[in-house]
């Protein structure tokens, strides 16, 4: 009996051992096959997935997964890489570009992509009936685009063409050497006209969706999440390593930070402002200089701001270093010029803090010790961050220059309307460059342009910016742009730069590769992979 029991026990143990081993093996297999999911806080619900109707950062992140234009961004430094275009060359002094379209490209539904697709897509972008917000961007480059977009001429006025099935050509308004980088922008996106014609406004719904990017839309639950999975028909499908990307529109910074800490998301595209001081010492906190400037606009036509001495005095009259170290705290860089640091561009030295010089200038303008200087307002859009900055500048101007300032906040849409109408004295503004060239920061201050709410106007400046637009790439063109900025900032102080933006990202780079930080804050999901 005892023996029998022992034998049974031994048999049971052996069975248990064998089954254990089996389980481990199964676990091993599961581990190998486990799909890699990359989850991120996308900040907000995208306004649209249609490349020609979008205009923000959350939309850009999704665009990079679902679509590919002629050009794409290099994840390391946001420099241009061939996308749908395999190669290109410039002719006619840099005013004509000819692109070779990559062979064998298809949409996710198998329909062919060729040079005609590019032409049709861009015509749709510029068509007034599309009502694209970003139409002004292609209008800046393509010859005849503006005439078509404003309804003055037909589509045939747009100087783009398919020379043959695999060759696309465009004529530019000038040499515009930054055009190749700009083509990675979504407003130059290529769209599936056959799907748009078939489904109309519903073509971006997951069941109808057609794209040509490294990923394809899997699901879209509005306000909840968007998921994308690899597109097997993508020309470089082998390069795609993630099995799924999940975009979460998390609006509350504390919630997204908690989710990040709990491992519920892998990449947080922001961090709670009020915890920056503690968070910034973590290894996975990354603050990177961005191609963007935070500045104050002076109403150049209103007294006393019509006097450049007054504008200079105000700009010299406060300490930017203290501002970024004690108020904004996230690693922003004090700005003395409108254009942030850019390779090949000789930066303008600007007007540094100099309280004595500021007082002197103010006295020369007729306000010794701030006496008689009319009280004025700083306008900003309602936000705790903008308020703190305005309060700091207010106290500095009061203490250093004896100038009295009050603060006025308005909610976003009201503020934009007030600013665009020029109905302010000093207003906050910010600008993030669309492409890596000084021009993106300078051309908007040409006299009479819609963005120039401060009504800055100097014919010499206008002339230099227009001249640069006709010049080929090279140091000479850069020096003309720098001359223009010198007039705009150093001599005229048309606007008052305060700091250069930084982008904040939280991601564990020991875990994730193919992710780098660049001035455009662009991180194509095509390149991201899980480190072993």
């Amino acid at each position, binding site marked *: 009996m005892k023996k029998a029991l022992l034998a049974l026990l031994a048999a049971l143990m052996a069975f248990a051992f064998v089954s254990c081993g089996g389980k481990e093996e199964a676990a091993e297999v599961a581990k190998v096959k486990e799909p890699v999911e990359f989850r991120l806080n996308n900040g907000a619900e995208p306004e649209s997935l249609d490349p020609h109707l979008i205009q923000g950062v959350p939309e850009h992140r999704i665009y990079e997964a679902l679509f590919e234009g002629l050009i794409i961004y290099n994840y390391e430094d946001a420099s241009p890489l061939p996308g749908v275009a395999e190669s290109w060359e410039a002719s006619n002094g840099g005013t004509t570009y000819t692109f070779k379209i990559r062979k064998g490209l298809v949409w996710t539904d198998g329909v062919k992509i060729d040079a005609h697709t590019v032409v049709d897509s861009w015509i749709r972008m510029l068509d007034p009936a599309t009502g694209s917000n970003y139409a002004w961007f292609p209008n800046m480059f393509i010859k005849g685009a503006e005439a078509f977009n404003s309804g003055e001429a037909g589509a045939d006025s747009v100087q783009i063409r398919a020379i043959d099935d695999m060759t696309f050509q465009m004529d530019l308004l000038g040499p515009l050497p930054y055009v190749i980088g700009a083509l990675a922008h979504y407003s130059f996106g290529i769209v599936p006209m056959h799907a748009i014609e078939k489904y109309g406004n519903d073509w971006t719904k997951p069941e109808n969706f057609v794209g040509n990017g490294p990923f394809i839309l899997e699901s879209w639950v509005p306000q*909840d999440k968007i998921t994308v999975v690899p597109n097997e028909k993508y020309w470089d499908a082998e390069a795609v390593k993630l099995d799924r990307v999940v975009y979460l529109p998390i609006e509350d910074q504390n919630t997204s930070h908690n989710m990040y800490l*709990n491992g519920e998301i892998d990449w947080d595209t922001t961090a709670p402002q009020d915890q920056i001081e503690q968070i910034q010492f973590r290894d996975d906190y990354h603050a990177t200089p961005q191609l963007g400037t935070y500045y104050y606009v002076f109403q150049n036509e209103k007294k006393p701001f019509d006097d450049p001495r007054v504008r200079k005095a105000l700009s010299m009259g406060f300490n930017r270093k203290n501002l970024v170290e004690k108020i904004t705290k996230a690693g922003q860089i004090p700005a003395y010029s409108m254009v942030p640091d850019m390779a090949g561009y000789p930066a303008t030295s600007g007007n540094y803090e100099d309280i004595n010089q500021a007082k002197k200038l103010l006295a020369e303008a007729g306000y010794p010790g701030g006496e008689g200087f009319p009280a004025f307002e700083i306008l900003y859009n309602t936000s705790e961050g903008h308020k703190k900055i305005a309060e700091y500048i207010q106290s500095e101007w009061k203490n250093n220059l004896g100038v009295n300032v009050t603060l006025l906040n308005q909610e976003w849409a009201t503020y*934009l309307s007030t600013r665009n109408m020029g109905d302010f004295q000093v207003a906050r503004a910010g600008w993030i460059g669309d492409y890596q060239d000084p021009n993106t920061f300078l051309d908007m201050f040409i006299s009479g342009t*819609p*963005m120039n709410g401060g009504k800055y106007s100097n014919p010499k400046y206008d002339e230099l910016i227009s001249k640069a637009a006709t010049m080929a790439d090279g140091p000479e063109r850069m020096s003309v742009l720098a001359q223009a900025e010198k007039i705009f900032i150093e001599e005229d102080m048309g606007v008052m730069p305060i700091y250069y933006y930084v982008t904040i990202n939280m991601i564990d780079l020991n875990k994730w590769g193919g992710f780098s930080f660049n001035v455009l804050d662009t991180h194509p999901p095509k390149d991201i992979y899980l480190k072993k």
Partner: protein
Amino acid sequence: MTKYILKRFLGMIPTLLIITTVAFIIMRIAPGGPFDRERAIPPAVQANIEAKYHLDEPLIKQYFRYLGGIIRGDFGPSYKYKDQTVTDLISNSLPHSLLLGTLALMAATFFGVLAGIIAALNQNTWLDYTAMSIAVFGVSVPAFVIGPVLMLIFAMKLKILPTSGWITGPDGWKTVLMPLIALSMSYFASIARLSRSSVLEVIRSDYVRTAKAKGLSPTMIILKHVLKGAMLPVVSYLGIAYSGIITGSVVIEQIFRIPGLGRFFVQSSLNRDYTMIMGVIIVYSTVVILMNFLVDILYSFLDPRISYQ
């Protein structure tokens, strides 16, 4: 009664029409527009967009175009979320807000009435003080404080609940708990205080004394006599509370990532998403009117002295 219900029902139409008209006017007086961005766009581009959405037409024509759309059940395209219509957005998000709001109000009512009765029956004892302290806490601490604190305790420290999200996956019910508590807290508090004071009032009334004199058991008295009378103020509060709880969930929806309608209540105005603003206003007005209507009918059942002709 049927006549009354029909009359009230038809009365909703002019009320809604007035609300729609006033909202339309106020909205269009507000500075700024739905397509304004940091970069001011050239007038020609702006004109294209306005033409696409008929915003270039005279205001009166736009108004009638909109009304015509509503009659056909078409709330128009959203100017902000361009791939979706207002009808899509509302029908996707309203159920979440209704679910959360209904659950929260049910919890608040159940626990609120319970706490109120216990407090009233044990007036000036530790039970009363405890219940009322919780109520005072609930009234004074806003949801945007309770929410993150709950998240900190249950998701970050104890790690027994997910930080946020809304009913997805097998553990979906877990995501409901924190927003439910955060949202119902202040309603619980009001209902507890309301029912305590009305129970106190009713138990001193003559008909309760009669019931006692007849020799009914205390439980029977509470359930059959006190509760019915004491619920009148609570029921009238519930009407307002329900409309408040589904419109007032904006903060909770943001903190816990709930894809509800509450966020549109504020966001659409800030975005100047005209059609969405109108859609949200019409939906919420309808809910408010319907709730008031329902409360009035409930009244007549609770209090036989009230009758409607």
